[in-house]
């Protein structure tokens, strides 16, 4: 099995950037051996201080990659994220920059329950000054992380556990290489001209699977990977969508204050799509249950996306005008 592209990205960055430090509650012995304990810093379970310290290092010219393990644990460090990392540049009127990257796992097939499973991209996208990268594939994770590791401002990288299962190589891979990916530029994961499916993180693969199913209905779908929740590529997506017409926006997060509503509103007001040719598929506003059987109906499925898409295309006697999407609750 070949090395995971993210592992390569991390090692390359550590090799090339002597000022790069890694903070984590766990450090691999071989990396400590290679890069020293001063750079590979092992810390207690104290995420608040961990992120605060990373901010301090960044303020005086270092760069820190914090492996927070899970986004779930980032909530204990929300003050340094919201009130320190993303504020010092502005508060000091540009005297400082805070080149800080926080990586954490979101959710996907782990069944750990409500406290451990969070995705949080819409929530984090509201923080001014923060880049929120949400890779949808292994190469995209490597590419977004590579960019993060040279970015002059704080970045959170929200990684699905699906990108790190033993058979990560089986995942759909829309990015040809693990090369750095720009922030705020949506990618076309699949070309197609009949309709567009837009996904982020886990729903990129979901959209690709739905596109395959829709091909059986004679529909060639374009699939768009938003890649970053902030900046959100509203204009780029509008351009891509304008070429196809109907669009389905798919997110595992619930509808309430979703970035997909923000995007959808833009697509409509920019004239990229008519409101009755746009549908949403959202997850339910319910915490993650441990049981996979209980979880299944709370997350968008290929069936949901296919149904929403078929509801929009004129081939099916006018579709249902986006009702499938609007049925999804808040």
């Amino acid at each position, binding site marked *: 099995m070949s090395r995971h592209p993210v592992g390569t990205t991390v090692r390359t960055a550590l090799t090339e950037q002597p000022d790069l430090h890694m903070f984590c*509650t*766990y*450090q691999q012995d071989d990396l400590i051996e290679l890069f020293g304990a001063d750079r590979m810093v*092992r*810390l*207690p*379970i*104290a995420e*608040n*201080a961990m992120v605060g310290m990373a901010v301090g290092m960044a303020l005086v010219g270092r760069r820190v990659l914090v492996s927070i393990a899970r986004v*779930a*644990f980032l909530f*204990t460090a929300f003050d340094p994220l919201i009130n320190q990392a993303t504020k010092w540049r502005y508060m000091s009127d540009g005297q400082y920059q805070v080149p800080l990257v926080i990586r954490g796992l979101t959710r996907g097939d*782990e*069944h*750990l*329950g*409500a*406290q*451990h499973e969070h995705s949080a991209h819409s929530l984090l996208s509201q923080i001014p000054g923060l880049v929120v990268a949400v890779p949808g594939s292994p190469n995209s994770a490597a590419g977004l992380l590579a960019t993060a590791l040279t970015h002059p401002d704080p970045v959170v990288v929200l990684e699905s556990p699906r990108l790190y299962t033993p058979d990560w190589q089986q995942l759909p891979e829309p990015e040809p290489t693990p090369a750095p990916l720009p922030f705020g530029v949506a990618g076309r994961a699949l070309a197609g001209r009949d309709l567009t499916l837009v996904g982020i993180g886990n729903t990129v693969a979901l959209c690709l699977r739905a596109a395959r199913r829709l091909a059986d209905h004679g529909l060639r779908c374009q699939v768009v990977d938003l890649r970053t929740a902030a900046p959100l590529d509203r204009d780029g997506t509008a351009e891509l969508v304008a070429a196809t017409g109907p669009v389905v926006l798919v997110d595992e997060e*619930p509808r309430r204050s979703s970035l997909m509503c923000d995007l959808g509103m833009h697509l409509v007001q920019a004239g990229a799509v008519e409101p009755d040719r746009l549908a949403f598929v959202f997850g*339910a*506003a*319910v*915490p993650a*249950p*441990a*049981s*996979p*059987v*209980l*979880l*299944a*109906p*709370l997350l968008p*499925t290929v*069936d*949901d996306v296919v*149904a*929403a898409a078929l509801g929009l295309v004129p081939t099916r006697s006018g579709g249902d005008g986006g009702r*499938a999407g609007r*049925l*999804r*609750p*808040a």
Partner: protein
Amino acid sequence: MQLTAAYRTMLRIRILEEKIIDCANRNLVVGFVHPYTGQEAIAAGVLAARRPDEWVVSFYRCHGHAVAAGLPLDGIVREVLGREGGVCGGKGGSMHLADRGRRFLGASSIVGSQLSVAAGVAMAERGTGRATVVFCGDGALGAGVSYETLTISATLGLPLLLVCEDNGWQDQTRSELVRHRTPAQLVDGLGLDHVEVDGNDVAAVHRAAETLLTRCRRERRPQVLVARTYLRHYHAQVGGARPPEYRPAEEVAYWRARDPLDIAAAAADVPDPWLAEARAEIEREVDQVFAAALAAPPPDVATAATNVTAAPLPAAVPAVTAVAR
């Protein structure tokens, strides 16, 4: 406390956990498993000293606490395996067992968070003569919330017993590498009443817990029990493959030779046939529980979106009912 009863509690935990590990190996467990094997004397000793009307608060490594708190094995196993009839209806899973009726408040999987929740319970219980028991690992003492809770508890005089299960590791990191004080030094430095005890000796744990719980109930002061122990297996199992051993072989061997069940059996001074019979009996019980659980269906899918809130508010239709399929 009867040593034989304590031994049986410990044996039930051990056999239950080994069976759960066995199921994990066969990918029959929902989520991760954090086995309690090796630490059984702590749950058994402490909770034998707790009165049934006193709340117990736990963390992700909660199966042993749940058993010792009197939860039915059936409800535990079904929760862990994701079958109908689990104590949390399949929503909590292995890390979040809860049983309000038995005053087993529940378990939090965010390290340290259970301390503040438990202190709130103790606050509500203040003046009733009841103590509240909360468990944590040694790594949890690194978290700011643990410090906040302990200092607030001392200031407000909360009847809280913190049981710190010091197994020397926090996940795959040796605790010594990330702390400058042992748990006992730390709570001592914070000026908290505390006792350090051999966590593999159930009689010693129980004696200490009795003393501390009595103080909790009478005096307006939190108490800390630091129990030195060791995990027989590993921090956690993820998926169907047992994780490789990450701890030094001599350390593992040292502790294997000090298994809490052996120590309890020796102290109870019961004849071998008694031990064999106890084991056989509990194995039968556990086997039956697993057989029934594995034959049971998963939780009812119609409950997926229930109990998010008390009742749906005007503008918030329960989500799952509207899923278009």
